[in-house]
């Protein structure tokens, strides 16, 4: 391993952008929806992530619009970003396949986690 793995919020932001360019609030909503409510990015965190991803060449600004007096900056995925997202997805899929295969071959051990007794 030569670099740290892609973290979930980064993975979700890139995944959201893989479907097309998005502006800030749409990205916040999409990442929350894609994570089924687990990841809710705050605006400051989102812009810090976009700043970093832009610096790494994974995303880029495609256009800006002013709607009702508000600036909406649209971000898009670069080819490098798409390649890194695909590689991360491949890794996750491979890990999931391994986990499912090993779970399928697992015989019940009869050992329960410690905790309050459950009446049967």
């Amino acid at each position, binding site marked *: 391993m030569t670099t740290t793995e892609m973290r979930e919020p980064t993975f979700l932001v890139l995944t959201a952008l893989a479907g097309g360019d998005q502006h800030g609030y749409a990205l916040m909503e999409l990442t929350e929806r894609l994570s089924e409510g687990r990841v809710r990015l705050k*605006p400051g965190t989102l812009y810090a992530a976009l700043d970093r991803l*832009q610096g790494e060449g994974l995303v880029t*600004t495609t256009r800006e619009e002013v709607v009702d*007096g508000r*600036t909406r900056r649209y971000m898009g995925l670069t080819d490098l970003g798409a390649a890194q997202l695909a590689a991360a997805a491949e890794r996750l899929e491979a890990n999931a396949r391994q986990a499912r295969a090993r779970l399928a071959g697992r015989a019940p051990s009869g050992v329960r986690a410690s905790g309050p007794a459950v009446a049967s």
Partner: protein
Amino acid sequence: MSAALERRCRRLLAAYPRSWREQHGEALLGTLLDAAEAEGRERPGLDVGADLVVRGAAARVDRVVPREVRDGIASSALALGVALAAVYVVLHVWAPFGQGREVFRESLHFGPFMNPGVIPCGLWAVALVLTLAGRSGPARFVLLGTIPVLLLLPVLGAARPEWDGPSTTNLVVLGVTAALAAVGSPRRLRRLGVACLAWTAGLVGLYAYADVLTSIGDRVLWARIATPANVGLATVPVVLLAVGLVLLRRSATAVVVLATLVPWLAGASVTVVTGSPDQVPLFVTTTLVAAASGVVALRRLPGEGPRRRSWRAPRPA
């Protein structure tokens, strides 16, 4: 849209540096207003405000020392700190090969060790393992956690004459190195592992060269090897290397290289203050030259790296 909401959001954006606000302020403001409106709020939530303040402060730090440079400094400091901690524990705190160890052990003991320096050094090992496992956040937490431990040890040690140290020099050096290692997240983990081994081998080599591998004493490194004079001498090639890197437009690397001097200069400063006042001029000169080189390298950073690219929208054709 409420003017009061916009005013409150703009006030929070003041946490960011002006240059950042000029590039991204209006876009972030638009997102804040969209989010507040969707939630039916007339003011940003406390969590959103706190997040903006923290991110704004980080952006301010980022303008002075960019994240990539901080990551490099953190990686370099972590490797040095792990090596210092490992050598310190094995040769001084545990000292299984120490000459006359059994005699010293009659009066100096902390369990099987000579002093409780094993505790902060153990935390360094935990930080390394966490970093190599890709958990840089918890690793930074552990590194910062060593600092209160290092502050507490002398307080506890004042009432325990059977503890031989840790000496002030080692406490200061480990603390300063921990603070440096916590300023970022090492990215190239294989290189980090190699650097840990290289620093450890280098330190053991220096101990062997100075013929102090089996010497008992908490300050052997600082009294016999990293003396203020030797640190001053070693600073010269490091500064020359940094100047060369700046000329080659590798200022980020130059800053990382110069940052490796900080723990050594911190150790030398304690030696100078506590026992070698005659070396003050040399130490001050060395520190000023290294600091000036660092400032020059930092000022040359803009325009050299991809981080300084603007991410404004492209102009319409």
